């Protein structure tokens, strides 16, 4: 079971390294969003610093979304899904493996690079740290919620837009607590730890629900 899990994680990481999958693209998209929003808002650093954490979180949600549609779709297109579905390892374990590989190539780099992008928005060091911490804890939720949508749209030709419409509402709680935790750290009225722990709990719940729901969706649709 662990062998199949590791084999799938390793294969997806290898593919990401060789083909340059959604991970690198998500990062570039993240940077572009952060760079483009100030054009709309105007170059007022005070304003940008105030909304910075929210902006980074919002960009992270969108950047996660654009990579997700290919999560299962590539496997459905080339038939590798048959192998995954006929494995003697439970499908839930394999879905978890795909999610982990996707998070390692998309969510984690996003969280680790967020402080650097925070510089563009004149965030204080404390705020950068808080955004990075909340993203590390929160992006697994985004990945696994998105995995459900990815599984549902896996066999549809143009799943990308549909996927975004399906999962964005489900990502709202994560976004709320992620941003409020990040804001709390920069001198809000509430303590940092409360929303942060709720965010962590949301992430854990999302991982569990996401794995089972995505596996069920794959059995139905793929």
């Amino acid at each position, binding site marked *: 079971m662990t062998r199949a899990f590791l084999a799938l994680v390793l294969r997806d990481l290898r593919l990401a390294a060789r083909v340059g999958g959604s991970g690198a693209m998500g990062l570039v998209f993240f940077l572009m969003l952060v760079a483009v929003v100030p054009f709309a808002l105007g170059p007022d650093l005070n304003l940008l610093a105030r909304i910075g954490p929210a902006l980074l979180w919002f960009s992270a949600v969108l950047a996660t979304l654009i990579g997700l549609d290919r999560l299962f779709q590539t496997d459905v297109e080339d038939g590798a899904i048959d192998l995954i579905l*006929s*494995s003697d390892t439970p499908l839930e374990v394999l879905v978890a493996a795909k999610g982990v590989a996707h998070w390692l190539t998309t969510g984690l780099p996003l969280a680790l690079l967020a402080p650097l992008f925070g510089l563009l928005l004149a965030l204080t060091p404390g705020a950068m740290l808080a955004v990075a911490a909340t993203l590390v804890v929160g992006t697994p939720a985004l990945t696994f919620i998105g995995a459900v949508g990815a599984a549902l749209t896996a066999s549809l030709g143009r799943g990308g837009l549909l996927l975004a419409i399906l999962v964005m509402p489900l990502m709202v709680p994560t976004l709320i607590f992620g941003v409020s935790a990040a804001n709390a750290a920069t001198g809000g009225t509430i303590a940092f730890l409360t929303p942060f722990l709720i965010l962590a709990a949301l992430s854990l719940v999302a991982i569990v629900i996401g794995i089972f729901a995505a596996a069920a969706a794959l059995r139905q649709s793929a």
Partner: protein
Amino acid sequence: MRISVEGLACRRGERLLFRDLSFSLASGEALVVTGRNGAGKSSLIAMLAGRLAPAAGAIRAEGIGEATLAEVTNHVGHKEGLKAALTAEENLAFAGAMLGRPRLSPREALARVGLARAADLPAGYLSAGQRRRVALARLFVSRRPLWLLDEPTSALDAASQVRLAEVMQGHLAEGGLIIAATHAPLGLEGTKTLSIDAHVPSVDLPGGAEGERA
């Protein structure tokens, strides 16, 4: 092991593809499923692989212990499931990890289909026939008795077809089972055949007219 199918019917969307389909197959036997395009050969294979729910009827397997039918099935469909960026060996190693019950190493499996030298080649560089053979090599990385093959000979040249027949004969001799959907003869001796056309509902039945159109 023994697999028996009774009164199987297949519905895809609104139309009934076939019905009242029954057969049974024991260890060491092969079944060739024939039929015209769209008759439902691939759907039958998908049902046996557990990827499609039958509209009626039952598929039973005996003598496989705790395992489900899907876990003793090695299925090579018309999509190869190969990743272009991975080498043939990496692709097979992944298949082996997914299927479990290890048998031959990826390199040995490639040698069985005459592609030992392709081990280090990314699958994207291979021709259609070669990719097909790499996919068929999957049959050897895992010890699974039931082989489900969908058009196994497509894109294969004559020499490869002969080799495939040898390999299948060997699998039957070891007590395996083979169910293959195909247009072309497989070159196997003593196989059962099943024509799906005989089970396609006739025109006067509801849904039959739709079925004829395919």
